[in-house]
């Protein structure tokens, strides 16, 4: 790792301002790192060096003229789920073979407007369905972290596994990601990075390939809390092209960092203390509580009684919405087409060849729960349970809780292939602590908080009130200040 790629986004901002290096030099350092090391991680599925250098050149011109923008010259990786005009955007699926969107997603357009530099597109679970990045058409991503003394390849989490691995391995300064049930926070926790899923409606979904529309949200993965705050401010916007984009002003999140948490009421939900929870997760959670107490916050035990139903309800709602959203991949308008005897034969062969196993499984479950006679028993009931899950949180916030502290994941990173057995539910259980937040539309941030006995990173999660990401950044900084930050030892 060269020195330049070790800088945080805040550090890049400072260094460019002081003219310690140019944006082009910085981008060249990243492109060289990708060239040398991407094969070790399989994090990028497409690299865009020409575009990157052109954007960096423009950044240098702006800086010379004293007109630097918020993300001027910052080299970023973009999850393959985001449409980027004229550039590979396939949701890591074979069914979108060759797809190059004729338009730009709102989130990425915001990043370029503020001077960000695009390095390329990042690997992910196919259509964002997964918790390990093993469902990608492009193959798994390798976590830059290894168990102490071991050389087994570990997953980086998913679905934003490429984003998390690239940030942790210093193959980009920050990355875009998306989170439907945990896909920003779980990979962040597995790689010692910071990831925030903002409130539903905070970032526009325009131009992001849809998985489950009522749950999907974009957010950043970055190396520090401050970097995540800098990125989210640019990514978030009110967008007339997304009817679910909320008409709420985007604050300066960075301003909240460093503010005291004295008097903040932090909820500790008893239902998150699950059976069989590894001791190191308990300890980490306890450490988090101690840090807040020391910082003057008040800890309050709370109850969120419907917690355990969030994951099963998610596995009805998300596949149902996915089966509908993925109906568009039919071999007619874009991507792969396998010829058939008639139109139905063509559809069936195209979708059979284009979708991977996990995606097929989801589409089938979704089709089943929405099919005649089953809608009320499954989908309607799940949406009612969802109302109850949200109500639990509302009651806690009404009782004066400012943020809720939980573990981010039930374990540290596991080995590639380790959870590939016949029971898909084993993999789904990765998201027990994160999925509640999507079901309730709330913001949640994962912050690295320590290492497990094998030397792998573990994260804590903070859950906030709707549109109160600022409090999450403020509170998350306390964890970062107390725990420090975590960088994998380079073996690559």
């Amino acid at each position: 790792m060269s020195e330049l790629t070790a800088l945080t986004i805040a550090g890049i901002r400072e260094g460019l301002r002081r003219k310690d290096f140019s944006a082009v030099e910085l981008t060249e350092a990243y492109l060289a790192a990708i060239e040398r090391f991407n094969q070790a991680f399989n994090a990028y599925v497409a690299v865009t060096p020409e575009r990157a250098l052109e954007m960096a050149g423009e950044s240098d011109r702006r800086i010379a003229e004293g007109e630097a923008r918020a993300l001027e010259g910052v080299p970023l990786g973009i999850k393959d789920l985001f449409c980027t005009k004229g550039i590979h955007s396939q949701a890591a699926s074979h069914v979108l073979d060759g797809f190059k969107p004729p338009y730009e997603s709102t989130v990425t357009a915001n990043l370029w407007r503020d001077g960000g530099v695009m390095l390329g597109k990042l690997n992910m679970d196919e259509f964002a369905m997964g918790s390990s990045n093993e469902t990608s058409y492009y193959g798994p991503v390798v976590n830059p972290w290894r168990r102490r003394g071991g050389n087994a390849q570990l997953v980086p989490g998913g679905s934003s596994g490429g984003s998390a691995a690239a940030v942790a391995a210093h193959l980009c300064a920050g990355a875009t990601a998306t989170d439907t049930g945990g896909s920003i926070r779980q990979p962040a926790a597995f790689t010692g990075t910071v990831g925030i899923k903002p409130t539903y409606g905070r970032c526009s979904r325009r131009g992001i390939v849809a998985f489950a529309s009522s749950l999907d949200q974009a957010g950043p993965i970055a190396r520090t809390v401050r970097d995540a705050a800098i990125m989210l401010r640019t990514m978030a916007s009110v967008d007339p092209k997304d009817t679910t984009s909320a008409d709420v002003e985007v604050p300066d999140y960075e301003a909240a960092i460093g503010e005291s948490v004295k008097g903040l009421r932090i909820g500790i939900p008893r239902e998150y203390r699950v059976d069989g929870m590894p001791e190191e997760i308990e300890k980490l959670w306890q450490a988090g509580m101690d840090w807040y107490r020391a910082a003057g916050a008040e800890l309050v035990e709370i109850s969120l009684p419907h917690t355990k139903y969030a994951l099963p309800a998610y596995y009805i709602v998300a596949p149902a919405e996915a089966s509908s959203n993925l109906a568009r991949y039919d071999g007619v308008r874009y991507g792969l087409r396998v010829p058939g005897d008639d139109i139905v034969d063509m559809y069936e062969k195209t979708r059979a060849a284009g979708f991977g196993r996990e995606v097929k499984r989801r589409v089938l479950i979704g089709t089943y729960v929405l099919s005649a006679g089953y809608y009320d028993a499954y989908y309607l009931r799940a949406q009612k349970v969802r109302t109850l899950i949200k109500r639990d949180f509302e009651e806690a916030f009404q009782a004066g809780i400012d943020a809720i502290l939980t573990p981010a994941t039930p374990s540290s990173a596991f080995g590639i292939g380790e959870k590939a057995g016949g029971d898909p539910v084993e993999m789904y259980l990765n998201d027990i602590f994160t999925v509640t937040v999507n079901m309730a539309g709330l913001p949640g941030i994962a912050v690295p908080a320590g290492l497990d006995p094998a030397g792998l990173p573990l994260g804590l999660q903070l859950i906030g009130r709707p549109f109160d990401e600022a409090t999450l950044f403020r509170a998350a900084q306390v964890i970062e200040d107390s725990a420090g930050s975590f960088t994998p030892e380079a073996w690559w």
Partner: protein
Amino acid sequence: MSVDIATVKRVAHLARIRVTEEEAAALQGELNAILGFVEQLNEVDVAGVEPMTSVIPMAVKRREDVVDDGGIAADIVRNAPLTDENYFLVPKVVE
């Protein structure tokens, strides 16, 4: 509830995904594992509970009823596997 092989095949056809016998057999086990997992939702008392429609309460946005985009047929068909002029081509649907 659980699904049998015939149901798996019927649902796959509804979803327009061709499955082999082997795939159908594997999917049956996997789908039943998921259906078994979600079964616990039946424990929840949902009497009188409204199903969620919008996770963040917001008014549906309106806009002027005017044409503000369009005329980009070439862009729209650009990614299609088979086209003729500005048309998508599909196998013959009517005789």
